[in-house]
C-alpha cells in the first residue's frame, strides 16, 4: 500500500464520506484506474459529497520516480471500504481541540492516518459551518510521525487558504442570516453544497488540491527509503513441499543437477524410518552446526536427505557437500558419502552425527537399481527407495527448544502444515539470532548471569545457546552491520 491522501467531509445526508482521493499509481495501473472509476460513477453522491465528476480523474506524472499521481472523486474499489472507515474515524471518533488541527491515529491493519480536521463556514449549513478533514494514510507509523512537521505545515497552509476564501463567500452571503428564527424554522430544506462552492472556486479548487496532494505524496515518498538487509528468508516456501535448495558447495555429483527439482522428501518420510532417539539426535547436531554425515549406497537418496536437512536451516548456514571421501567438519556441515567410506578415527565422535543408510539386501531390488545409476523418476519412487533402507544413527544429543519443535513437526504435525511450520520456526529463530547478535555486541558472553537473563527473557534453556551461536553465524553481512551500528548507537547514548 502506498500513501493515500483524501479529503473527507461529514455530509449532512450520508455522514462521513471520502470526497477526493489522491494516490500514486504505476503507469500500468492507470488503465485499471480508468475502469475502476467507471464503476465508482454509480455510487451515490449528493452535492456536499461531490468533488470532481465521478467518472473523471486528475493525473500528474512524476518523471523522476516514474509514477503517476491520480486523484479521483471516490477511492478505488479495493480501498473504498477501509478509506471510508478512516474517514468515519477521523470525523466522528477522534477528538482534537476545537475540531481544528492535526491528529494521528491508526492501527497496523488499517494503516496510520494523519488527519487535519477543519471547519469551513457556510451560511446555509446547519450551525453555519461544515466539517472537513484532510487525511494522509500510510502503512508505517514511524515514518508518518517523522514527517509530522512537513505534512502538518502543508495541511495547515492548504486549510488556511481554504478558510480565507470561504470567509469571503460567507460574508457575501451573510445577509440571509439576519432574517430571524421564524424564517429559520420554516426553512426545512437543507442546502447541500460542495467545498468548491463554499470557497468560490468551482473549477479551480480540485485541480489546486490535486496539485497540493500530489506534491505532499511525492515529497513524502522521497523521504522514504526502504533497505532490505536480510536475504530470502521471509519468503514462504511453495506450499507443496520444501523445494530442493542449491547446495552451495556442491562439488562432485554433477549428475545431481540433472535431477528433476520436483523430487524431494518430506520430514515425515525420514521420521517414519528413524527411531525417536535417532531423529532427535540428527536435529540436535543439525541445528547447532555440527556435521551431519549421511552415508548410503544410493547417491540419489543421500543427496535427497541432505537437501531435506538443508531446508531446516537458514540458507546462509548451509554448506552441503557430496563427496567420495570424508571431508572435515570445517569444510561442510552437511556431508554425503558413499557407504564404503569410513569416518577417520581422529574425528571427535561428539562433533558429528552419522546417518547410516544400509540397504537390507546388498543385491536387493532398490540397491541394485540405485547402483545401476538410474535416478528415481518421481517422489514416490524416491520414497520407496528410502523405505527400503535400514537407517542407523550414531551420536548423542541434548534437549533444545528448537530441536523439540522440529521433532514435533516431523512426527506429530500434519504433512500439509510442516513446510509452513518449519518456515515460521526459521523466521522465529532467525529473529532470536538477531537479538542474540545484538546482545553479544553489547555484553561479553563471559558474564553468565547476563546470558542467563537473556535466555530467560527469550524463554530458552542453556542448551539453546549452542543453537543461537550457530544461527548468529548465518546472519547476512549487511544485517550484521546494521545491527552492530544500531547497538553502537544504543551503547553510546
Amino acid at each position: 500500500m502506498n500513501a493515500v491522501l483524501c479529503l473527507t467531509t461529514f455530509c449532512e445526508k450520508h455522514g462521513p464520506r471520502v470526497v477526493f482521493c489522491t494516490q500514486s499509481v504505476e503507469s500500468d495501473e492507470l488503465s485499471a484506474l480508468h475502469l475502476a472509476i467507471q464503476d465508482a460513477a454509480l455510487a451515490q453522491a449528493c452535492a456536499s459529497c461531490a468533488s470532481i465528476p465521478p467518472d473523471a480523474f486528475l493525473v500528474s506524472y512524476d518523471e523522476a520516480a516514474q509514477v503517476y499521481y491520480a486523484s479521483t472523486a471516490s477511492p478505488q474499489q479495493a480501498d473504498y471500504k477501509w478509506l471510508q472507515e478512516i474517514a468515519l474515524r477521523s470525523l466522528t471518533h477522534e477528538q482534537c481541540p476545537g475540531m481544528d488541527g492535526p491528529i494521528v491515529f491508526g492501527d497496523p491493519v488499517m494503516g496510520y492516518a494523519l488527519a487535519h480536521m477543519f471547519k469551513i463556514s457556510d451560511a446555509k449549513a446547519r450551525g453555519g459551518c461544515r466539517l472537513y478533514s484532510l487525511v494522509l494514510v500510510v502503512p508505517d507509523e514511524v515514518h508518518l510521525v517523522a514527517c509530522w512537521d512537513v505534512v502538518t505545515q502543508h495541511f495547515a497552509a492548504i486549510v488556511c487558504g481554504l478558510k480565507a476564501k470561504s470567509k469571503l463567500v460567507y460574508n457575501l452571503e451573510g445577509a440571509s442570516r439576519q432574517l430571524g428564527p421564524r424564517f429559520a424554522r420554516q426553512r426545512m430544506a437543507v442546502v447541500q453544497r460542495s467545498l468548491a462552492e463554499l470557497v468560490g472556486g468551482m473549477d479551480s479548487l480540485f485541480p489546486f488540491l490535486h496539485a497540493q496532494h500530489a506534491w505532499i505524496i511525492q515529497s513524502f515518498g522521497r523521504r522514504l527509503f526502504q533497505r532490505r538487509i536480510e536475504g530470502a528468508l521471509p519468503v514462504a516456501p511453495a506450499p507443496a513441499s520444501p523445494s530442493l535448495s542449491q547446495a552451495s558447495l556442491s562439488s562432485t555429483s554433477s549428475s545431481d543437477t540433472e535431477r528433476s527439482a520436483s523430487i524431494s522428501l518430506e520430514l515425515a518420510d525420514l521420521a517414519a524410518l528413524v527411531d525417536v532417539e535417532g531423529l532427535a539426535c540428527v536435529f540436535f547436531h543439525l541445528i547447532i552446526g555440527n556435521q551431519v554425515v549421511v552415508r548410503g549406497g544410493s547417491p540419489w537418496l543421500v543427496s535427497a536427505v541432505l537437501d531435506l536437512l538443508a531446508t531446516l536451516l537458514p540458507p546462509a548456514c548451509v554448506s552441503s557437500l557430496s563427496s567420495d571421501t570424508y571431508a572435515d567438519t570445517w569444510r561442510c556441515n552437511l556431508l554425503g558419502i558413499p557407504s564404503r567410506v569410513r569416518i577417520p578415527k581422529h574425528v571427535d565422535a561428539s562433533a558429528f552425527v552419522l546417518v547410516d543408510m544400509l540397504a537390507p539386501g546388498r543385491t536387493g531390488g532398490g540397491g541394485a537399481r540405485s547402483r545401476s545409476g538410474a535416478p528415481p523418476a518421481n517422489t514416490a519412487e524416491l520414497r520407496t527407495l528410502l523405505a527400503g533402507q535400514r537407517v542407523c544413527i550414531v551420536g548423542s544429543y541434548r534437549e533444545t527448544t528448537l530441536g523439540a519443535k522440529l521433532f514435533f513437526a516431523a512426527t506429530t504435525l500434519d504433512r500439509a502444515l510442516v513446510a509452513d511450520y518449519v518456515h515460521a520456526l526459521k523466521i522465529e529463530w532467525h529473529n532470536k539470532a538477531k537479538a542474540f547478535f545484538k546482545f553479544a555486541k553489547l555484553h561479553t558472553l563471559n558474564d553468565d548471569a547476563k546470558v542467563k537473563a537473556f535466555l530467560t527473557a527469550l524463554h530458552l534453556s542453556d542448551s539453546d545457546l549452542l543453537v543461537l551461536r550457530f544461527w548468529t553465524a548465518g546472519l547476512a553481512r549487511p544485517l550484521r552491520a546494521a545491527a552492530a551500528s544500531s547497538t553502537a548507537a544504543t551503547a553510546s547514548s
Partner: protein
Amino acid sequence: MNDRYDEFSSGSVPYGQMFPDMYGEDAGGEAEQGYENKPRILLMGMRRSGKSSIQKVVFQKMSPNETLFLESTTKIVKSEIASSSLISYSIWDLPGQVGYESNPAFDNEGLFAQTGALIFVIDAQDNYREAIAKLHTTVLRAYEINPEICFEVFIHKVDGLSDDAKTVRQQDIVEHVLANIADAELEDQIQISFYLTSIYDHSIFEAFSKVIQKLIPQLPTLEQLLDILISNCCIEKAFLFDVVPKIYIADDSSPVDMQTYELCSDMIDVVIDVGCIYGMGENDDTGLGYDAESASVMHLNNGMVLYMKEVTRYLALVALLREDKYEKHGLIDYNVEAFKNAVAKVFEPRQ
C-alpha cells in the same frame, strides 16, 4: 440490572442498603462505581430529527429558538447528569448519519449493554418511513444485546401540527413500528412507549420525566410516600421535581394533567428566578438560588394554591391544592417536613 429492579419492587430492603447494591454488585464491585456504571440514555434517530436540541433544551437550558443554530452532531456527545442532580445518569447523543446499529465496525455490545433507555427521535414533520426502518433495526440489535433496555419513541416536532394531524401521525407511526416488531415475532418481549414531544412546550420535559422515572429504582417508594402525603393533606396533585432539568422524578398515583404539570414547572422557574435575584446565600456553590430555605406558596385566581418546598438539595415538592384545604397550613408544613425526612432517608447513602 435485573437484580436491581427486583430488589426495589419487593420493597422490603432497608433504605441504607439500596444504593450500594444498585451501583456496586451487578457491575462488578465498588471499584467501578462512577461514570461507567450509571444508567445510560441513548438519543438516537435520523439526522436533523432534533436529538441534540432535546438534550440542550432539557439539560442545558438552551432556548428552543437557539437550537436552530446548532451544528450537526458529528461525534457521540456524552453529558453526565450527575453533578447537578440527585439521580445520576449519562445521556449520549449519537449522530444520526452514522449507522451505529448496522455497521459491524462499531462495538454494539459496549454501546447497548450498559444502556438503561434508548430514546429514538422521529421527526413528525418529515417523511418518517426511513426513520421507522432505522428504528426497527436499532431496536432489534439493541434487544439482542440487552433485553433490559427500555425503548422510548419520541414523535418529535409536533408543535407545527394540528391536534388532528398529531393523532394521525402518532397512530400511523405506532402502527408501523408495532407491525414491524410483530413481523419479527417479538411483540411479547419488546415494549415500546410513544410520546408526542416538542421543545417549544412542556411535552419534552414530561416525556423525559417518564423515561427517567423508569430508571429510578426508588420510584415505587417515592410514589407511595407522595400518596400518603396527598391523602393526609387533601392535596389534589403532587410532584417531586428535579429542579435543574425541571423533570419530575415521581408523582402520586393520580393521572397527570398536562396543565397542572406546566403550572408546577413554571412555578419552579419563578421561584428559582426570584431566588437568583434575592436569595443567593453567601455559600451557595450551586449558583442556583435554591437552598434548604426555598419555599413558596402561590394563590391562583381560580381558587387553587400552588405549594412548593425544598426536599433535598436538588429535589422540590410541588403540590396543587384547593384554597379551603390550605387553611390548616401548619399541618401541611408538618406533613411535608415528615415527607422530607422520609425522602432524605431514601437517598441517604448517596450524599
